[in-house]
């Protein structure tokens, strides 16, 4: 269904339910939907599963959500960073679950969720602790592990510009997980820097087609 354009971050995340799996875009600060995460903290949903490349930096954004004890589990490729003290503390205290997924598998498993693929045989991580317990199969002389989709209830992503239908374009390496997460969640919420009228984006250059986007959030955009 068509996307709604909102000017309130709070309104855009108002219906996120306790226990939701939330896909959070970004790689480092590039593409990180900071305002949506802040709104989710204010909103109060708890017992969340967060899927993101990292597990929070410093004391803001994802780290603040973790510090507020709203997250039951993190699925990510790289939790441990120089400034991931919030996650580190919760993890060492046994207060948060962690599933470490190789970065490409994280992306491909969400891609599979969005593309209706039931599971896929992937060569990454075979013979390592990260595929322990997974089904291994040799295909054409190479060993693969069976990987399952990661589907979100909600995706929070950041794009550069949206049109009023919800078509999105990104900027430089801030694109990263956004287009993949947009396909993989039931409700996709995109914060953007700019909203243009329908027809204002070149159809050849749309990265995330409007079909994937439920809500576009840009302060000041609604009344335009």
């Amino acid at each position: 269904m068509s996307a709604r354009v909102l000017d309130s971050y709070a309104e855009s995340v108002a219906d996120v339910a306790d226990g939701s799996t939330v896909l959070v875009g970004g790689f480092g600060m590039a593409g990180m939907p900071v305002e949506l995460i802040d709104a989710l903290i204010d909103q109060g949903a708890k017992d969340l599963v967060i899927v993101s490349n990292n597990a929070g930096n410093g004391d803001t954004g994802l780290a603040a959500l973790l510090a507020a004890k709203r997250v039951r589990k993190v699925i990510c490729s790289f939790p441990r960073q120089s400034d991931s003290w919030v996650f580190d503390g919760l993890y060492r205290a046994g207060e948060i679950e962690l599933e470490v997924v190789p970065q490409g598998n994280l992306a491909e498993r969400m891609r599979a969720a969005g593309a209706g693929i039931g599971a896929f045989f992937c060569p990454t991580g075979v013979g390592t602790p990260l595929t322990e317990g997974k089904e291994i199969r040799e295909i054409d002389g190479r060993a693969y592990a069976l990987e399952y989709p990661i589907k979100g209830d909600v995706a929070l992503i950041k794009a550069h510009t949206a049109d009023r239908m919800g078509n999105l374009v990104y900027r430089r390496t801030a694109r990263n997980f956004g287009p993949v997460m947009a396909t993989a969640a039931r409700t996709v919420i995109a914060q953007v820097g700019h909203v243009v009228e329908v027809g204002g984006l070149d159809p050849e250059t749309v990265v995330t087609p409007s079909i994937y986007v439920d809500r576009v959030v840009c302060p000041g955009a609604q009344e335009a």
Partner: protein
Amino acid sequence: MSTPASTGTAPRGKHTLAAAIARDVPDGAYANLGIGQPTLVSDHLRPGSGVVLHTENGMLNFGPAAVEDEVDEELINAGKIPVTELPGAAYFHHADSFAMMRGGHLDVCVLGAFQVSANGDLANWHTGAPDAIPAVGGAMDLAIGAEQVWVMMTLFAKDGSPKVVPACTYPLTGLACVDRVYTDLATFEITASRGRADGALLVRDLSGTTLSALSDRLEVPVVLA
């Protein structure tokens, strides 16, 4: 689907049927209209409905068939008919296009059919004739992908045999995938997948026939919606 079963006085022609389907497509829906008669549905979508049409060869939000100098051989639909581009369109490649379908992102898809079974099995790609060259295109992908799969067809074949059947005799396109069947004589809701124990089809929009006349000619149980 909250409208009561109504009785038309004559079977619905393809344009009437297309208009009926168009009325049921929700505003703002993303829809794929199959090759052939389902294409007619687009002519009846309400202006301003915001319905966005998908074509599996890699485009969202195409417009009416191209005429005269609008024709561009690089802007075609799945039936290879030149079409036009509406504001807000997007192009993408074939793997992305079918990921969109298979991933359940389309709200509605409307397809033709040879047969639909009472449990929603679809047969629409192959007559089973032994000398026919098989060709499937995107039929199987469409059948299993959309949130709602609607069939548009005549209820009876030219030889008088029903096309809504207890079990398909033609080679299948997809299992238990059809939600609704729009025909000249009635519209049917497939209930098997929704926990209705007897698997009866819910009938509405009777046109030029009666429930008992339908019951006599069909081998599947039908009840009024």
